[in-house]
């Protein structure tokens, strides 16, 4: 394969530690900036889908600084820990929810040689890491000593177990077609055709499972505010709560990035538009998929808990398994 196996940083910076710092900084900046942009987009898109304007004041121009203002507000708030809470677990939980998405971002390629790390087991690493975030939600719910938190955490656990399976299976189909677990490899394998075309049902399954993994509407029963206040996050205030919010938007960015790598050709341009560089394509695809996730939130009401489970186990999983079987047959038949 014509893969540039070293990243652009490594080929230009000879000092190992300097290259490491540069890569870590870039990943951190992306992790702090892009989720804010997605959050702002959610504010605005949601508002306009409801014939409103959304934030208009902060930062003078169409409220662009709203989320920074929100962040400043969260920092000033009192950090309340319930008396009966397990203080250590309660305090660690937001970090456990947030850091996995930051770590996932390390392996996401933004161009043929623009990535921090090209792991041979890239997609495996992504799915493993994104599952750790669930642990943060469980820790938060259990340590809060609040029945609503506990119910939210249990719902989250049940939901994430149910939807991890279709998510992994849909990703597995793309991996089978590409013949590699490396994210750069999967993108490069889509030079001829993006996998969204041969694997369209699996793309839908992946997106639905991703929305459920992120506990976003219409699959937001773990934080169903009309039933259980705010689920596992009920007792959280101030900066810790902001961490959970950031992990939600970070999760949207990461899941959109993974979906565009697996199905939408990642940083590959549309035919005839290769003038536009890869990173712009990658960010464009991330924002397009994030828009779809926000769009779903603006459109659909929340499902019931049992509907959610039934949908995952008797619809998504069999469909995905059948399609994988088909992919396997085609793969073997064509050699």
């Amino acid at each position, binding site marked *: 394969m014509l893969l540039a196996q070293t990243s652009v940083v490594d080929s230009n910076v000879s000092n190992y530690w300097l290259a490491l710092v540069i890569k870590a900084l870039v990943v951190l900046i992306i992790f702090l900036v892009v989720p804010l942009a997605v959050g702002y987009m959610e504010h605005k898109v949601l508002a*306009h889908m409801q*014939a409103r304007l959304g934030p208009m004041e902060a930062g003078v121009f169409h409220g662009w600084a709203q989320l920074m203002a929100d962040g400043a507000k969260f920092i000033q708030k009192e950090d309340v820990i319930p008396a009966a809470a397990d203080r250590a677990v309660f305090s660690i939980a937001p970090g456990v929810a947030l850091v996995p998405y930051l770590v996932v971002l390390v392996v996401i390629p933004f161009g043929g040689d623009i990535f921090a790390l090209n792991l041979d087991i890239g997609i495996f690493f992504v799915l493993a890491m994104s599952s750790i975030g669930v642990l943060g939600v469980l820790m938060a719910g259990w340590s809060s000593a609040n029945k609503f938190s506990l119910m939210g955490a249990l719902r989250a656990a049940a939901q994430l177990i149910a939807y991890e399976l279709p998510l992994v299976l849909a990703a597995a189909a793309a991996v089978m077609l590409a013949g590699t677990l490396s994210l750069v490899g999967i993108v490069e394998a889509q030079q001829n055709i993006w996998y969204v075309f041969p694997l369209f049902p699996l793309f839908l399954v992946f997106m639905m499972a991703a929305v459920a993994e992120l506990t976003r509407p219409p699959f937001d029963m773990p934080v169903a505010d009309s039933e259980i206040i705010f689920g596992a996050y009920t007792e959280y205030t101030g900066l810790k709560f902001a961490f959970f919010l950031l992990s939600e938007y970070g999760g949207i960015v990461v899941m959109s990035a993974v979906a565009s790598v697996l199905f939408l050709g990642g940083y590959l341009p549309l035919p005839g538009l290769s003038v536009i560089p890869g990173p712009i394509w990658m960010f464009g695809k991330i924002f397009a998929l994030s828009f779809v996730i926000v*769009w779903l939130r603006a459109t659909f009401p929340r499902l019931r808990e049992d509907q959610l489970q039934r949908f995952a186990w008797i619809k998504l999983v069999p469909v995905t398994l059948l399609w994988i079987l088909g992919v396997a047959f085609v793969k073997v038949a064509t050699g």
Partner: protein
Amino acid sequence: MATTETQGAQQNTQKEQGIGLGLLTGLSVTLRTMLKRSVTVQYPHVKPDLPARTRGVIALKEANCTVCYKCSRECPDWCIYIDAHKETHEPAGGGRARSAKILDRFAIDFALCMYCGICVEVCPFDALFWSPEFEYAEYDINDMVHERERLEEWTYTVLPPPALEEGAEAPAGDEAQEASA
């Protein structure tokens, strides 16, 4: 049994609508709403265009007031304060001395007012009007009592009443009464 029945009903409605068609309709509604211009008026920057009947604040045209106390008696909240005294004066051509009520104080406590408009309705000489102005919030609740000078100022903001609908009856007023008499 009950659950199987509801499941059957769900499956039936799904078959009637076609799977996913309703979902797509919903998505298209939100997308089309997003592409339309928002109707929000950006209030502090743009003043709202309020209709003439808006119940913003009550204005007093003092020259029309005969101090009949009808408004203050009808007020459910008792938020209208009227003080007056009687003055008698001899007519120039001689005869019985005439008395007239002179207004000393007319105030409306908008902290109590519930904007029912009964005072405006009941006023026999058109001394009270609705004005669409609404920006008179105060830091001190005592300042919500508007004295007669302030109530007079509000009359400058009263809008002319909207035109009658076509084919509507002529309003029962002085002219109508005179014509029938």
